């Protein structure tokens, strides 16, 4: 086959492959939408993290500001130590609170950050002190039933007194 025809087709093939790589990277994947790429780490201890996984989103006011880097069991405090990679363009006050939340009823779990009012900002490796763990359905139902039972006993006692 003629050399220039061959080169043309191979060149076209390589360009098509390169174009599809760019499509996959930017249109399908999240390269480019992931922020500046520079991150710093924040820590938080949760008594219960529910189904939180590595790479779960960290959101503040619903906006993605980072991702969960690792979830470990802390053998000293007997709770879960969560490390988060936060985009370095966002900074949070010292009294920021973190909670494990669920998007939708069956959705994935993520960490929600609520900024506080402190002047000082959390540094790299800083720990978020105000935390709220995941809701556990069994505990919620148990608590509800317990309260209900207390209410009814209180009501029946109240009835006798009258």
């Amino acid at each position: 086959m003629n050399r220039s025809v061959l080169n043309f087709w191979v060149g076209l093939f390589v360009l098509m492959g390169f174009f599809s790589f760019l499509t996959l990277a930017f249109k399908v994947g999240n390269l480019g939408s992931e922020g500046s790429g520079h991150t710093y780490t924040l820590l938080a201890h949760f008594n219960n993290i529910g189904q939180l996984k590595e790479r779960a989103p960290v959101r503040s006011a619903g906006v993605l500001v980072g991702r969960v880097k690792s979830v470990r069991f802390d053998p000293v405090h007997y709770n879960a130590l969560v490390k988060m990679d936060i985009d370095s363009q966002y900074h949070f006050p010292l009294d920021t609170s973190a909670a494990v939340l669920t998007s939708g009823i069956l959705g994935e779990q993520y960490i929600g950050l609520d900024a506080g009012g402190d002047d000082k900002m959390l540094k790299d490796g800083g720990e978020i002190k105000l935390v709220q763990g995941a809701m556990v359905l069994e505990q919620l139902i148990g608590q509800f039933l317990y309260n209900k039972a207390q209410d009814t006993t209180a009501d029946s006692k109240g009835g006798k007194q009258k």
Partner: protein
Amino acid sequence: MEAVLRGIRLVGDRTLRIVERIGATAVFLAVTLMYSGTSLQRFGLVIREVFYAGVQSLIIILVSGLFVGMVLGLQGYETLQNYGSAQSVGVLVALSLARELGPVVSALLFASRAGSAITAEIGLMKATEQLSAMEMMAVNPMARVVAPRFWGGVLSLPLLAMLFSTLGIIGGYLVAVVILGVDSGAFWSQMQAAVDFRHDILNGIIKSLVFGVAVCAIATFEGYEAPPTAEGVSGATTRTVVSSSLAILALDLLLTAFMMKGWD
């Protein structure tokens, strides 16, 4: 008793032959890499093989990718609709294509489209004593014939796999958004939120690179070692398709297990 012993011996013999074959392929791969210097200097030889292995496989890869994506979109929509999350069909299509179907299906197609052709070509060159003639002229057939075909295939497969995934996602988009009426914005934004560049797309490309090395090593080895008869070449071509398909699926399981656990 004798029959049982014979049966066990037969199993042992088969196993040893398979292991020998894998070992010989690995040695052949190492020799190919050793003689690759020439083909990298004369890159025109590799470009020629990229044309025969890659460009000529384009049609089958693009069409299969489009259809696989369309089927995924249709099936995903049917099931996800029951849970009221038809918008997630984009996530389903993109993740299954980028992680698994793109690399694996394009490697299977590549093995049967290009791998078999490489085996048949090299096997016939051997049967018609062209390889011996080259050796007579002090041209090393490993460097002149095998290495360019190997590198041409290894370079082509990742490109083909990426094109397969892209066309598949376009096919899924056509079915889900254009025909079935899923919201276009939700389709793309949920996809972008769920697909990670490094964990999903880059790992898929690494997979197709590994499959490319496996398929091309098997195809060149089978061609080079084929008995120089018509029967021998036909048997070698069949063996290329069968063993490279098995190798692709086995390697896929291994790579997926490693990637899910994380390399680091």
